[in-house]
């Protein structure tokens, strides 16, 4: 029976404290999981949020001014900052994955270096945008 071996009980050492403190994700792993998280955030709520703002600012002169005033609210600015980070990270990490797909930078050293670049560049872009925003 094929399922017998699949159902064999194996010891598991995964606990919350192990996940939090003992199992450390290597940097490429962080790039990967953040790629997922940022992607999910971009699908919802960010895509809807940006469509909403584009809709309003294209609809009328008042709508544009309302959107501009809306973007001045501190909480909205914070949201925009998170959006910029998500977009920048998803973009940079995505480019890295495309390069990995065509076998560029798959050696351990290069892969580590490129993951550092992805994390840094997206944070720098977010910081630059934050400075422009405030």
């Amino acid at each position, binding site marked *: 029976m094929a399922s017998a071996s699949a159902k064999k009980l194996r010891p598991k050492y995964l606990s919350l404290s192990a996940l939090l403190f003992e199992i450390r994700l290597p940097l490429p792993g962080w790039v990967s999981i953040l790629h997922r998280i940022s*992607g*999910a955030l971009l*699908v919802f709520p960010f*895509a809807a949020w940006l469509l909403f703002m584009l809709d309003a600012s*294209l609809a009328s002169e008042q709508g*544009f*001014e309302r959107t501009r005033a809306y973007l001045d609210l501190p909480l909205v600015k914070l949201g925009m900052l998170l959006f910029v980070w998500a977009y920048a990270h998803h973009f940079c990490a995505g480019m890295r994955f*495309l390069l990995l*797909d065509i076998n560029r930078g798959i050696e351990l050293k290069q892969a580590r270096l490129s993951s550092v670049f992805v994390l840094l560049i997206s944070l720098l872009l977010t910081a630059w945008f934050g400075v422009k925003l405030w």
Partner: protein
Amino acid sequence: MVNRVVTGAHYGTGSWLAQRITALVIAVYSVVALVVVFVGKPLSHAVLKDLFSQGWMRVATLVFMVSLAWHAWVGVRDILMDYVKPDGLRLTLEVLVILLLASYLGWTVQVLWR
């Protein structure tokens, strides 16, 4: 015993490739849009309306949104397959995501051709 080779038919290859091609479309549109917004005139309602009244911008934006929806569908489906194990719940979430992405497309058409 059913001897079905589930990995031999390349079920996922089409999605995999589509996700990468749509990624490039999204990336190119994003960079062009950024350049247009930051290098062009300061944004105002008139400038924005002028930009989106041009045929190429409308078509490019629609192609971008279709790519985005397709790309997002492959990605979200991957996430759901990885983390949501109960079939009924996963199916429900998948249907909701399809409805969400379809309404994004409808909304985009409405915004572009009003």
